[in-house]
């Protein structure tokens, strides 16, 4: 188990949750201010403080410096590896940095972190296009944006189902596509992300994706060979822990089964 936040594990659960969220948000801000990805920053308390004090240039310098360091890590520069405090990698923006992310971390507190963050406890891997996959027990998040991470932290699990958190975007009156880090993404990549999670054992999937029930869900069901539940309209989750997802605009959840199955 990858435990890049293990050092925070001995703190109180609330602190661990906050540390997890802030670290993830800082990773996003690092990438944003280095110009690599994202459209909305600052998200983390650290960067908000910097920008609110009129130091946007400083934020950009920090982001660029961290990205440069991470690139050096990717190239095997041991000095750079040492400078990544706690082994926290900014690899979300780079892909292929999972080895660096694992360097220098311990496993203490991983279980505490898992329970405190609704089982979101590890950086899993990256999609073929370099987007971050975050795996937890019974849940996979595809993409690194703050909204996805908050949804994963706040959504109440559905008994017997495996949750997949990924954005969707409508492309015409009847259909939709997956959207990861601002790019259209096909169902095969989402399926690969699910398969990268060792806690997915073939159980039915609940797709926390807006308009997921308008196209992508059937494709995913066919690829994985399991029932998939998707929404026909936007899906949202309140910023309140253990919340049930809500389908807006008169939409509903629909169950899809592999084509040709007996259901």
């Amino acid at each position, binding site marked *: 188990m990858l435990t890049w936040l293990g050092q925070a594990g001995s703190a109180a659960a609330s602190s661990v949750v906050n540390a997890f969220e802030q670290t993830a948000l800082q990773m996003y801000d690092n990438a944003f201010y280095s110009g690599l990805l994202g*459209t*909305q*920053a*600052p*998200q983390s308390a650290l960067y*908000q403080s910097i*920008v*609110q004090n009129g130091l*946007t240039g400083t934020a950009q310098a920090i982001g660029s410096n961290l990205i440069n360091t991470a690139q050096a890590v990717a190239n095997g520069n041991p000095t750079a590896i040492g400078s990544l405090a706690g082994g926290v990698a900014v690899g979300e923006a780079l892909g292929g940095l999972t080895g660096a992310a694992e360097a220098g971390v311990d496993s203490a507190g991983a279980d505490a972190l898992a329970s405190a963050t609704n089982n979101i406890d590890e950086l899993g891997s990256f999609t073929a296009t370099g987007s971050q996959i975050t795996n937890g027990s019974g849940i996979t998040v595809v*993409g690194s*944006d*703050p*909204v*996805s991470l*908050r*949804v994963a932290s*706040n959504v109440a699990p559905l008994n017997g189902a495996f949750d997949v*958190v*990924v*954005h*969707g*975007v*409508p492309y015409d009156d009847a259909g939709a596509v997956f*959207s990861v*880090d*601002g*790019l*259209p993404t096909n169902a095969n990549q989402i399926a690969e992300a699910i398969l990268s999670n060792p806690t997915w054992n073939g159980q039915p999937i609940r797709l*926390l*994706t*807006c*308009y997921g029930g308008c196209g992508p869900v059937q494709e995913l069901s066919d690829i994985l060979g399991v029932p998939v539940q998707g929404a026909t309209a*936007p*899906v*949202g*989750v*309140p*910023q*309140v822990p253990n919340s049930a997802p*809500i389908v*807006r*605009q008169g939409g509903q959840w629909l169950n899809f089964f592999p084509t040709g199955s007996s259901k």
Partner: protein
Amino acid sequence: MVELLSDREQQMKVVGLFRELDSHINQAIQTIYDMVGKLQVDNVTAMTTYLRSGVPVFDVMEASVDPFDRSVQIEGGPSLMSDGVWIWRNDLAYLVERYKVGLPDEFVSHAMKHKVVSGDKKIIASKWEKIVEAYELAEKGIRSD
């Protein structure tokens, strides 16, 4: 009782809602094309700072599309943020920063005065049902107050 009075006095208002942002939005609502470049350049940083300091209240797993550049998707754009009084979409800061879309004078004054959202995040987030309801009414062109 105190809470009821407070809610009545602080009627929530939606800012930065434009018809192009969602097909479900009442098409009588203002168009973003009339508001581009209407925000004073000197106010852009202050407005984006305030908007981004808002409390995430309701996270939506939809990527919105930049009305002026369909190739740009904004992850979680329709998500709702608030300061307890004003409500706005997560993508508003992007639109303000990139296109300097105009905002109501009342909101600009409010944001300039407070600089950042400083209310209790848990209290604001706990009002998510009221906030979503107010936003949905606004989408239909109905004021919540």
